[in-house]
């Protein structure tokens, strides 16, 4: 084997070894690398019990309630299968609105409600002009309206 081919082989083997090592490391840390926990997992009791964590989902249309004279508010967050009530006191980002993706940081309260201390808004990868969005909205139904609150998968709430 020529020296050049030996070097090629060495670089190739190092690359393959690194790829394998990286794959196993990332698999081991898969859950820790999640920025937020899905609502269905929270409802099934799969969430960190003794510490704060983040939930992510869509704000259910028609559930946002603000208390007058204060910053207290409540709403429901869904992954389009289950919905979780959330309470929060503070200012929400510009993009927070019904039907919008949202990430909330906080912990589970006693009564099956998520008590958030920070709200972040997620936006999707779509960019369009306001007029286009308006004409689209006439045809496309808001998907958060079809949440099945009584879905059997959501009843495992251990509060």
């Amino acid at each position, binding site marked *: 084997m020529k020296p*050049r081919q030996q*070097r*090629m082989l060495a*670089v190739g083997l*190092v*690359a393959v070894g*690194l*790829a394998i090592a*990286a794959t196993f490391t*990332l698999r081991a840390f*898969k859950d820790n*690398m*999640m*920025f*937020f926990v*899905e609502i269905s997992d929270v409802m099934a009791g799969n969430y960190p019990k003794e510490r704060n964590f*983040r939930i*992510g989902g869509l704000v259910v249309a028609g559930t946002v309630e603000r208390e007058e004279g204060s910053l207290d508010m409540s709403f429901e967050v869904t992954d389009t299968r289950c919905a979780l009530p959330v309470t929060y006191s503070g200012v*929400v*980002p*510009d*993009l*927070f609105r019904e039907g*919008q993706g949202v*990430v909330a940081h906080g912990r589970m309260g006693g009564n099956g409600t998520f008590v958030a201390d*920070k*709200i*972040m*808004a*997620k*936006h*999707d*990868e*779509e*960019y*369009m*002009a*306001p*007029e*286009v*969005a*308006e004409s689209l909205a006439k045809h496309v139904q808001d998907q958060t309206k079809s949440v099945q609150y009584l879905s059997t998968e959501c009843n495992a709430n251990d509060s």
Partner: protein
Amino acid sequence: MWKWFHQLASPPHFYRIAPIFSAVLLLPGLALIAYGVYAGLFLAPMDYQQGDAFRIIYVHVPSAYLSMMAYMIMAVAGGIGLIWRMKLAHAVAASAAPLGAWFTFLALATGSIWGRPMWGTWWEWADPRMMSELILLFFYFGYMALRAAIDDTAKADKASAVLALVGVVNVIIVHYSVEWWSSLHQGQTIMAKDGPAMDPGMLYPLLANIFGFTLLFGSLLLRRTRTEVLFRERRTRWVKEMILAPEGQS
């Protein structure tokens, strides 16, 4: 083809032709950026949700793209230098690092400024996209520090090329982080599965800026590599002859 390739790899030849290629890339690059910035700021419609604030995308996306592109060029050039012992390749890799680091910094800074009003946060430590991009910046810093720490150029070339190749894993993680894990960052827009999820009036200026930034980067990379070559070859005969030669003859 191979003759041309070998000729290009010869330092004196590269030193002569680099300014020509650099200029050829620079002019269309600046024209594209001028169009992209004007069309992006004034002609493109505002976004239905983010209003005018989305326009930071015209700096953010090209910078983020180049932060990864520059790294891949650095790593591939390092690999070519390791395998084929090509001196010019190591000079390219060394020159790409500071440029890539600046684009990474720009991507992080514009992302943070964009994230504050839209997401409601400057920075989230646990987010896979943000963390992997920050680690990319640290790879650039580590690469430059390693080079600076070794006096022997040949040894510095080898060690830093290995480090650059190791960091490719992180570039892949940056790219796929929004698909593999849940992230605050949204998914791919331009390379979305069903084609770009963007109004054409917004998309074309963005593409113009991406190509324009890339050409600008290429032009700067050639210029930096040229000075790097001159420094590395400072003790050779062709450099001495070139300096001692009378004006107009080189």
